[in-house]
């Protein structure tokens, strides 16, 4: 996984609550094996009900074609567990999502893919949202994981806290499986003990 220390770029505003994964990455024209994830990002939201391009939708505006940061509302990424809803963000260059709150699975999927999930204090969120709307893609923002802060174009900084474990994973770009396999012998020992104590747990298929 790519290491994350800091990212600087355009911050896109989508100030809405409960944006779900069906909106972020619709199954659209049906599921496929080799998907171009940038194409499915907000596929339906990009269109008006009559099928024409919704030029008011944030990701259709030219200044927000390649944002680095997304700023959004409460319960972001609720709905299904599809990881494509994070891959689609990453596919257009988003490395940090600042939300009022995240749905649990979505937040986890962000961490798995080197995307930094940030929540700020309510007061800071309001100020940041206003700054991002005001900047309108013209001036860059920085998400600085090392110092745990978001920095606006005027130098104003909003600090956030990430649990140390999550921060370490992102900063070191750790391979999650490798990290777990360091406890391989503990896994072996657990299996041995349980197959004696609760044999039904270690046998799924009874013939």
């Amino acid at each position, binding site marked *: 996984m790519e290491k994350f220390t800091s990212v600087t770029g355009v911050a896109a505003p989508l100030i*809405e*609550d*409960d944006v*779900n994964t*069906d*909106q972020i990455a*619709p*199954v659209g024209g*049906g*599921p*496929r*094996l080799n998907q171009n994830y940038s194409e499915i990002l907000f596929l*339906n939201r990009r269109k008006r*009900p009559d099928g024409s391009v919704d030029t008011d939708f944030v990701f259709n505006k030219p200044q927000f074609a390649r944002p680095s940061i997304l700023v959004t509302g*409460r*319960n972001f990424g*609720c*709905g*299904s*567990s*599809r*990881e494509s809803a*994070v891959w689609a963000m990453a596919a257009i260059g988003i490395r940090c999502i600042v939300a009022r*709150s995240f*749905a*649990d*699975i979505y937040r*986890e*999927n962000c961490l*798995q*893919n080197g995307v930094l999930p940030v929540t700020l204090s309510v007061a800071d969120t309001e100020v940041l949202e206003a700054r991002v709307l005001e900047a309108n893609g013209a001036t860059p923002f920085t998400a600085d994981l090392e110092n745990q802060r978001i920095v606006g174009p005027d130098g104003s900084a909003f600090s956030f806290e990430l*649990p*140390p*474990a*999550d921060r*370490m*994973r992102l900063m070191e770009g*750790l391979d*999650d*499986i490798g*990290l*777990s*396999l*360091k*406890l*391989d012998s*503990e*896994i072996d020992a*657990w*299996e041995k003990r*349980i197959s004696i104590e*609760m*044999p*039904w*747990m*270690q*046998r*799924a*298929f*009874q013939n």
Partner: protein
Amino acid sequence: MPRTLFDKIWEAHSVGTRVDGRVLLYMDRHVLHELHAPHAFRKLQAANRPVRRPDLTFSAMDHTASSLPLAQQTPNAQTQAIVDAMREGSRRNGIRIFDIGDPEHGISHVVAPELGMVLPGATHAVPDSHACTVGGLGALAFGVGTTELEHILATQVLALARPKRMRIRLDGTLGPQVESKDVALRILSQIGVAGGRGHILEFSGPVARALSIEGRMTLCNLSIEMGSRSGMIAPDDATFNWIAGRPWAPQGAMWDEAIAYWRTLPTDDDAVFDKEVVVECTGLEPQITWGTDPAQVVGISGRVPDFSSVDTSKRAALEKSLAYMGLAAGDMIEGLPVQRVFIGSCTNARLPDLEVAANILRGRKIAPGVKALVVPGSAKVKRDAEAKGLDRVFRDAGFVWGETACSMCAGANGDRGEPGDRVLSTTNRNFENRQGPGVRTHLVGAALAAAAAVTGRITDVRKLVAGGA
């Protein structure tokens, strides 16, 4: 220290703590499906990593499976590629597959319990957010992403930060034609789509205890809609009786040992939860969603709420929801014309759900112009329903009797409505465009769905049954 059901399962499955502070939680069972597993197979192969426990891993084929009769199913190049990759990856890794046409075919969350694969006190993972369904048996289940799926294949553990615990006590008794689904929708309207975030739910109280095991699974199925990754109901004699004799359930002396352990699982009397909610269920009407979020719920006699007092920052989203649904504040829900009815999904397509609907449809016909589809949750549900003659009841009423699949729940197999259709659906998500572009989904239980099919309108099933609708 008094402990909750969740604490007991969590602690029994904690293998160790990783350097980053995450706990490795052992997964007793892992069920894959074709939408996500092929990616993980590909990545594992590239990293040259074997599947650690193919004997505890199973492959379902549910999301893209067709609901057409087997003989009429024609391959579609796009989904065929996924299905082929699933078969190939499962075979290469020695994973048993419940393939289309097999006796164990079906929606993974329906198949795993009915086989006796999921057991009380066990952990369960599926790369699908409705893994929580099996919490109805007192199992701790996790819906996982694709990277987590790959992680479990390689290690058989999931790396987690310990979640908090929330109890939802369901008081009172349920009236006639009021189902588990109505209770779940009522909870949603009370706590909202983020109410359970960061918590594992435990449903308790007299209503939870009185539910059938299938009803418990329906309730737990909607935990994810409540914002929680998982929800459970403590196992009791009803659970043990339901599992006894299932093909993969432990037998003989091992069964007795298992039951003795399962009896230790329920939450201790003085255990403390991080959050407690009480929901009063006496007097509850059948419930229905009016909007595009599963917490936008009213009773069947209710009206679309008026938002004039809601603060402006939230009003825009509510109005957008209404515009999509073709409704206005103050509209009566009852009486709205319906174009389609879908009875199916991991929420409401087990045998008792089909029986509820069939009891309403028996001797009745669906209204002209309504398209009605029923898709059993598994091949076993289908067989059991056919043995009881339910297929005839549905067909005689004018329903299409489908092959098991996820079908119109997410439409990944092509079963979708037409733009503008108002659909009464026993599924779990009423998001915009989920059942097809422009399709207006109202989530309901099986009774309301059947009643609407008969009258062609959203109908209070209690009146229909009493002869008044």
